[in-house]
């Protein structure tokens, strides 16, 4: 009985040593695509770790125009820099994260329960680019639930909604100056070329 356990420990140690030797200095990059097995295992682990009562929690915010609009404004201001206004994750930051920001219009996100989405917004996801946005206040929780409503709306976003979000996206002072220079150039001014 003892011998198999000893061999198992020895094999584990040997694999560990090989892994250490092989991976030393091999380089790393956040640009690589996670393996399918890795992504699937991590999603399963996240689901496994989410408390059951949270997973089953229904969204207390009703599906109203105001709730979706509230979520839209919040998304454009806080989430779009990584996830994109359309939820595709196709942004400079979103593409280059490890794992990259997911396309939230796809089933992997849309099939999550409202409670799971809320939990991720509030608590973040360790070892990813997703921070915990929860403030522990009723207002903060309501904002997160509105975001859940908006995430459900992502696959149906209209062109008009996307344009209204662009006006709400935060701009750094440098970006504002950059835009002003382009506008000046296009309108016939000298601008900085």
């Amino acid at each position, binding site marked *: 009985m003892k011998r198999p356990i000893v061999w198992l420990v020895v094999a584990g140690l040997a694999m560990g040593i090989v892994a250490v030797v092989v991976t030393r200095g091999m380089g790393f990059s956040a640009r690589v695509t996670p393996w399918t097995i890795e992504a699937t295992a991590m999603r399963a682990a996240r689901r496994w770790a989410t408390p059951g009562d949270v997973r089953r929690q229904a969204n207390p915010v009703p599906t109203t125009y105001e709730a979706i609009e509230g979520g839209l404004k919040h998304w454009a201001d806080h989430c779009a820099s990584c996830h994109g206004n359309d939820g595709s994750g196709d942004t*400079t930051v979103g593409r280059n994260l490890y794992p990259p920001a997911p396309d939230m219009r796809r089933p992997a996100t849309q099939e999550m329960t409202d409670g799971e989405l809320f939990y991720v917004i509030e608590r973040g996801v360790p070892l990813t680019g997703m921070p915990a946005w929860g403030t522990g206040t009723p207002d903060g929780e309501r904002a997160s639930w509105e975001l859940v409503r908006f995430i459900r709306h992502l696959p149906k976003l209209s062109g008009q909604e996307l344009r209204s979000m662009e006006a709400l996206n935060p701009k*750094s002072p440098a970006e504002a100056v950059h835009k002003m220079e*382009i506008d000046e150039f296009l309108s016939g001014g000298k601008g900085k070329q």
Partner: protein
Amino acid sequence: MLAAMMMWVSGTSLLAHEETYKGTVIATQTAKVQVSVIDDKTKKESSMEFAVTAKTKVLRGDKVVVFADAHIQKGERIAVTVDHDASMSNAVVIRLAAPAGR
């Protein structure tokens, strides 16, 4: 603290990897635009060609338009933003002046 650092890194990335070329239109094709660009440092004029893809956003003033409906004229001023991370020649955003009289 980590969130603040991420925000800072994000902001830097956005500025570091996107570049906007300003110039005048030489020619347009179905999915391409050729632009005469003046280098800011050398003041040398060069011709650059940008591919217009399904992901390219075309702005006529503040209005998003389809590339074919932008009615880009030869000699018109244009600003083309590319994302060096994705492609050196694919236009991410094309900006044009608002139509006259608006």
